[in-house]
């Protein structure tokens, strides 16, 4: 019988892999994909808890997260394109013009 722990542990694993993607890649697109992975992992935990607590609030929350993720990707990718136009290079380590 599957319990909520199965889903939350899977969610934890996916979240760590997403964090790993942000940490070890320098390509901004892959880093965005890591952020998407983390958001998806959180969504899975939300839905799992909603199911095992017989409470729909978690599922409604997932919709809000979905909206925020879509907005974040649109703005983030627009930023990447804008940076690419201005700098010819989208290596995240070299975008440090705002460094104090």
């Amino acid at each position, binding site marked *: *019988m*599957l319990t*909520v*722990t*199965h889903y939350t*542990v*899977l*969610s*934890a*694993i*996916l*979240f*760590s*892999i997403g*964090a*790993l*993607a942000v*940490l*070890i*890649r*320098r*390509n901004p*697109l*892959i880093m*965005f*994909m890591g952020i*998407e*992975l983390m958001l*998806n992992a959180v969504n*899975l935990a939300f*839905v799992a808890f909603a*199911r*095992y*607590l*017989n*409470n*729909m609030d978690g*599922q*409604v929350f*997932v*919709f*809000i997260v*979905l*909206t*925020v*993720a*879509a907005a*974040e*990707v*649109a*703005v983030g*990718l*627009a930023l990447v*394109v*804008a940076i*690419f136009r201005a700098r*010819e*290079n*989208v*290596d995240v380590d070299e975008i440090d013009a705002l460094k104090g």
Partner: protein
Amino acid sequence: MTDYGAFMEALVFYLFAILGVLAALGVVIARSPVRSALSLALVFLALAAMYVLLNAPFLAVAQIMIYAGAVLILFLFVIMVLNPRLDLIGGRTAAQTVAAVIFAAAFGVLMSVTFAAGQLAPATGVFTPEYVSEAGHVQVIGALLFSEFLLPFEIASLLLLIAIVGAMVLARRERVRHGDPRQDLR
């Protein structure tokens, strides 16, 4: 639930869990951004299967439409525009990579142990699987979105509007540039 039903549930769960984790690792490891994006599509599909297992069919469909449909296509478009330059980006140094793997693994183990040790609160909610399947998943979600969660719903719509305008402003091409006319062609 019968033994057969429980067995099939576990089988589908482990099948898609393994698929999801392997595809997620593929996102991190793949050298080409296109392969990362396609691996990400597999993760989204595996999670949609999880939502079906968790009695949330509408969320599974929304997951496929929004993530595999919209978000992934956006990624692929940007990869298409930027691809030749993306290959020039190097990786982290070996020391950085090892440190990142260690910390991410430690974080994952910590979270897993915490989840496994936790005790789930008693299921006191009114939305039992029987109730949801009788009333309809879309109907239940829709009724909640337009009653109890109306304010977050409206704020989300505002957020989407801001994101649309923001993305257009950020990605807009400057029409008139002084100097090199080739700038407009890029």
